[in-house]
């Protein structure tokens, strides 16, 4: 064994690009809902993922938390079944359902045993069409949300994220947390919840993917069963106006904790921008996950300033962001932020080397198949690809888009995108020297 052997292996790697043969079928259910399907017969389970556009951003300005409360109640009773009866029935057929809502969409994920698929789909259909919103269940969920909000008041990570968005999006839905405020959560009425349910779920806004041991016909029937009682509806209301860029400078939120949490950010780049993939690869080198990014090297490996530090591009329906996060002891957080700014500037001014780019491409293209090693992961990715308008052939095209990025592309997008002097920064804790 030796360095020579390992380097040889690395070189061999250059010539091999493996890609999973994910056979995506596009189909339409008998009742007319379009969906994507991957047949995977080797395990007797079926995963279904649905996303409905138009989420908590449409909550009234004085009712943040309304969508969250509504969606939280979906598995608290439906049709003839109260919360306990529903739970027992779900356990009887061993179905698993998950519901979530963010600013832009409501997501439903279901995993079911093949032999119980019809019953599992029927029960989910009842949940989506006829949730009971029993007053008792509402009060229970309201109390849990209020308790969570109270605990959030002293959680530095939560405060940092919420303060950052509130500062970046004043008077805008993205500036209001989907978790709500105590006043709003206390004020929510059952009538508002019923109306929110009707607003959140409409067949016309659904993106649907099915992965598992089903045929295309069976999948179509399951989807129709799930969506049976749902109104057709129209497209989600568009976001009113493109928000202004987040304000530059640092805001400190005092909190008595030993370690400060910092969130920084700036405007990002739309996925349909010609330079999006250049920006994506650039961020992988600058602040992407894993141990290889410049931020990880400079902040953690060289200086021991933090356990985790990362940045990511984020796209909301009406805004694009580039956000990062680091946590460092109060007396050294200023140094961490200095390093972040310096790395932002170095990337803006110098871009990346060919060697860095080659390594990033090898990671990004080689690791892509790791996303497709479970039915649930594939279903989640297919719904993301539908909502982003990427096309059913995206899985096959994606590595080519990464490979096409050049050093010049990254230099151009870095100079255009990165704003080291205009970063919007929130620090929660007792930071020294800020």
């Amino acid at each position, binding site marked *: 064994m030796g360095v020579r052997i390992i380097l040889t292996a690395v070189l061999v*790697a250059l010539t091999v690009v493996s890609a999973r043969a994910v056979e995506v079928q596009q189909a339409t259910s008998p009742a007319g809902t379009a969906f994507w399907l991957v047949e995977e017969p080797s*395990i007797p389970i079926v995963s279904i993922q649905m996303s409905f556009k138009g989420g908590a951003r449409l909550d009234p300005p004085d009712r943040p938390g309304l969508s969250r409360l509504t969606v939280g109640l979906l598995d608290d009773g439906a049709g003839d079944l109260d919360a306990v009866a529903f739970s027992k029935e779900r356990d009887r057929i061993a179905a698993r359902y998950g519901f979530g809502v963010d600013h832009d969409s409501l997501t439903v994920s279901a995993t079911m045993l093949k032999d*119980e698929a019809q019953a599992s789909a029927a029960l989910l259909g009842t949940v989506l069409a006829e949730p009971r919103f029993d007053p*008792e269940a509402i009060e229970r969920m309201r109390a849990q949300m209020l308790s969570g909000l109270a605990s959030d008041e002293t959680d530095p990570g939560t405060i940092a994220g919420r303060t950052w968005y509130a500062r970046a999006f004043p008077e805008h839905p993205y500036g209001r947390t989907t978790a709500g405020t105590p006043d709003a959560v206390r004020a929510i009425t059952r009538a508002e919840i019923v109306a929110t349910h009707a607003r959140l779920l409409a067949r016309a806004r659904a993106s649907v993917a099915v992965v598992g041991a089903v045929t295309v016909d069976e999948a179509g029937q399951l989807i129709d069963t799930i969506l049976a009682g749902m109104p057709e509806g129209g497209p989600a209301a568009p976001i009113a106006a493109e928000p202004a860029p987040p304000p530059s400078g640092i805001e400190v939120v005092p909190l008595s*904790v030993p370690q400060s949490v910092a969130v920084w950010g700036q405007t990002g780049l739309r996925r349909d921008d010609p330079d999006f993939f250049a920006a994506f690869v650039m961020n992988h080198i600058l602040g992407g996950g894993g141990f290889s990014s410049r931020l990880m090297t400079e902040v953690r490996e060289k*200086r021991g300033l933090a356990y985790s530090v990362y940045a990511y591009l984020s796209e909301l329906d009406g805004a694009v962001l580039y956000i990062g996060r680091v946590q460092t002891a109060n007396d050294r957080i200023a140094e961490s932020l200095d390093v972040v700014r310096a790395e932002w500037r170095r990337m803006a001014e110098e871009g990346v080397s060919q060697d860095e780019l080659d390594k990033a491409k090898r990671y990004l293209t080689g690791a892509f*198949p790791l996303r497709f090693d479970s039915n649930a992961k594939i279903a989640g990715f297919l719904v993301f690809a539908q909502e982003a308008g990427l096309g059913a052939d995206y899985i096959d095209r994606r590595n080519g888009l990464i490979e096409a990025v050049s050093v010049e592309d990254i230099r151009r997008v870095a100079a255009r995108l990165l704003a080291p002097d205009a970063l919007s920064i929130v620090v929660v804790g007792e930071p020294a020297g800020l």
Partner: protein
Amino acid sequence: MAHRPLLLASLLAPCLAVSPIATALAAPAVASFTLENGLRGVVITDNRAPVVTHMVWYPVGSADEPQGKSGIAHFLEHLMFKGTDEIPEGAFSKIIAENGGRDNAFTSYDYTGYFQRIASDRLELVMRMEADRMRDLAFTEAVAETEREVILEERNQRTENSPQALFSEQMNAALFQNHRYGIPIIGWRHEMEGLTRADALAFYERYYAPDNAVLVVAGDVEPAEVERLARLHYGPLEPSGRPPESRPKEPPHRAARRMTMQDPRVRQPYVMRQYLVPSRGSDDPSKAASLVILAQILGSGITSRFSEQLELGQKIAIDTGAWYSATARDATDFTIYAVPAAGIGLADVEAGLDAVLATMAETGPTEAELARIKRKIRASYIYAEDSQATLARRYGGALSAGLSLEEIAAWPEVLEAVTVQDVRAVAQTYLVPARSVTGWLTGDSEEQG
């Protein structure tokens, strides 16, 4: 040694009602081997995607640390990425990444594990690198100094910034009177501050060797090929010849313990209780299986006893739960908690928990409750097959807890065989005051009652 295929035993077992869940079984294909130097290998085949999860588990964790060196197992885990005599400083994860792989590691009480997820045609690369750092770790004093800052920030992030995490530490410390499960995995801060390169290397040299390692490979691989590669790369490594020392055992617990922790950051008080109970590794596994089912009946979901009684019925709690992890080498904790509703005191909600426990010890669960939980458990085995990482962790964790492959294969049947009387018996025997610590976490002294 011979390649020995071993199929997970059918989950069918003595089933009361014939349900589709009981018949929809597809056991994962599991093969195993042992090399001459003592390294044990487990191969779980999953051909759905051309990727592989490669893991090495050392069945030593924070519970094996020398006195005064808490956190050294975890510190070493960090330092294992710093290089070897052949891999340059800081290059380990970068080589994995440049090959399209992800890598990481984890430390627990009973084990320390290292893994890579990568295209299956790169298995040999990661195996060669993992084998290299099993015996030839190399890093400088300066690297260790910097990394100590990183683990202190990790402790800040996970623990010091969270009163709930600090409270759990205090609870564990009070529960275990003689065993190192009572000491946090990440370490006590004052001891972490004194950890050195020499401490890490001493732990490494004592424990990291093929006869004290379990290899788990899951994914798009052929068992015979995995064994061939393992023989090639792990086979030449020298065994230590020294299994880990047995750990100190808990003495009989004779007194119920209580604590109140106040932290001004706490906005939502709650009560938590831990009991000292057996694990799969410490006692007859049927006791652990009964405790698994007891935890679910007491505190899993809205149909659980705690939820039905305290949240839905009396409305004195807004959240409740019970937690027990059976896969441990030594006697471990069984934890319950309740978060009081607004205006309800901790004493009242604690009394509510006690009333539910008393009923359970007296009458046990109903047959219907037992059947419902078993059905969920059977389904969970089917669902687990959708994730090769979950399967790999299940085997690695259980082998690291000292269980054999036969015991792992038999576990679903042990769960299936649990009776109403078994559940009642473990509730009566183990959920008793003398084995318990009860803790209140509050924001200020006013909220205690």
